[in-house]
């Protein structure tokens, strides 16, 4: 049993919404988590650098989902 194009697009949109909002929510909390970590200033700075890298990686997720949505929208298939 396959998934219709409409259903797939809905799932992709939902995933994009979740991804977009989740990054904002966790980024805010994780910057506070660094403060509460019980690490030295040096340790906190290292963590911040690591978290920034992760945030950028999460952006690539969104790029992939956007590309997938475009491909599905442009594609001729109706069942996946």
């Amino acid at each position, binding site marked *: 049993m396959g998934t219709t194009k409409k259903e797939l697009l809905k799932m992709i949109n939902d995933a994009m919404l979740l991804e977009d909002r989740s990054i904002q929510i966790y980024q805010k909390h994780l*910057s506070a988590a660094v403060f509460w970590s019980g690490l030295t200033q040096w340790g906190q700075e290292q963590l911040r650098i690591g978290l920034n890298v992760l945030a950028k990686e999460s952006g690539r997720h969104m790029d992939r989902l956007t590309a997938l949505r475009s491909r599905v929208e442009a594609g001729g298939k109706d069942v996946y």
Partner: protein
Amino acid sequence: MPELTKRLTEGVEGKWKAYLRFFIAKLRVFSLVTSVAICLYFVARVIILSFSDYTPVEKFFGLLLLAGETFMLAHALGYMVNVFNLRGAERAAPRIVPEKGAEPWVAVIVAARHEPRDILESTLITFRNLNYPHKNIYLLDDSSDRRFQEEADELGRLHGVTVFRRDARHGAKAGIVNDFIAGMGEKYLAVFDADQNPMPDFLDEIIPFLEGDPKLAFVQTPQFYSNIDDSPVAMGAGMQQAIFYESICEGKQQNDAMFCCGTNVVFRRPALVSVGGFDEGSITEDFATSVKLHSAGFRSLYYPHVKVFGMGPDTLPAYFKQQARWSAGTVSVFMKVLALLPRSPGALTPMQWVEYFLAGTYYFVGWAFFFLMISPIVFLLFGIPSFFLRPEIYIATFVPYFSLSLLVFYATMHERFYTVKQIATGLILGSLCFPVLMKSTLLGAFGRRMEFVITTKGGRERFDWKGLWPYGVMLGLNVAAIAVGALRFRHAPYPVGVNMFWAAYHALILSNIFRFNNPDREAAARG
């Protein structure tokens, strides 16, 4: 220790840091020594007050001061016991990790009444992101306003969340949760406030503890604030939470006396049902329900890892409202706990009684602070002594107790690399709550709640300056006491000097009210 770990966990080198490290390494011994110093000071104070030859008025103020000090000493002793226990052998709680595909079902709930849509949606998104496979998400909407009801329905549709409502309103949050529990089919219940966001592995970490111990009624996790940079109030409130969850709760866990804090907690449904659900007669239903569960023979667990982040109060009115609610509710439950003691002394273990006594009386700190504050004022302005220790006894008993208590407290905070400024912000904000706590504890004892008059500036709440009159009065009295003390200093340098020091200390604390009540976010953050 690997080099990276060493760099991450060690502070800047220095001679005094080496002393501090030695102190931290021997914290168990020092907490014991401090406990002895606390007891010695208390005995000295009681003996001298009992046998000193003073007038009834002087003895009256002497008793007020002793009452304030006794409160501080009892809670300092409780803190030392916690520090001592925490440095002892750790007891590992049993865990059973459920097999993949056979995980018990969990109802993840947020109870909301007229909550901002953005905040609620963020929480629902973090629920959806929980890795745990067998979860059902519910929004318990208790809004009476049609607009908020529509928003809740829309969020439910958007995120595939079930919206639960009740027909008849009773018992605020406890009431709607009880109505929900009555019909729920899941084994466990994860409860969150509207502004608390769990991390994705929250349930994966917690459920194995509940599966591992059938007598475990709930697992409580800490509540840490993310908006600490918003204002000094947010920072101060965050620091208070850190002190509570990092030192006090871990100590309570050692005595099987951790109580539920209302959010970031997972309950075993049958345990809740067996005690009649949440206590709807209290505004701190979490604390009241914990007493019921413990006295029914259930256990609780404090899981000391931050798995949930949330938003704390960032304005003085928001903070005072939170403290007033918590204090009134806690005191009203404390009255019930006191009544339970003579009826069924075996309902709780001796250490659970002690822990509930400490938790239930904590908010009387407002009265204690007030009693400590008026003592130097009445001495300097009216010549009425209330502290009857001779200098040599003062130095031999008060100085060791006070300096050791401060050192132990600072050491426990320093272990987590909090700065003196951050710790002070939390302590000063807590002290400034004294008029609110005095009123709310009184009202709480009679089952009533406190009202506030609040204005807004730039979209943020603040108190009108007239509303801060208790601080103006106390600040004025302390300044007047210092001025009179300066004139009298050469006649009696020792007693006048000591009282001037305390009046200046209290004036300094009181003057911070203007900084905390500043609604200008940028100016406040700079301050």
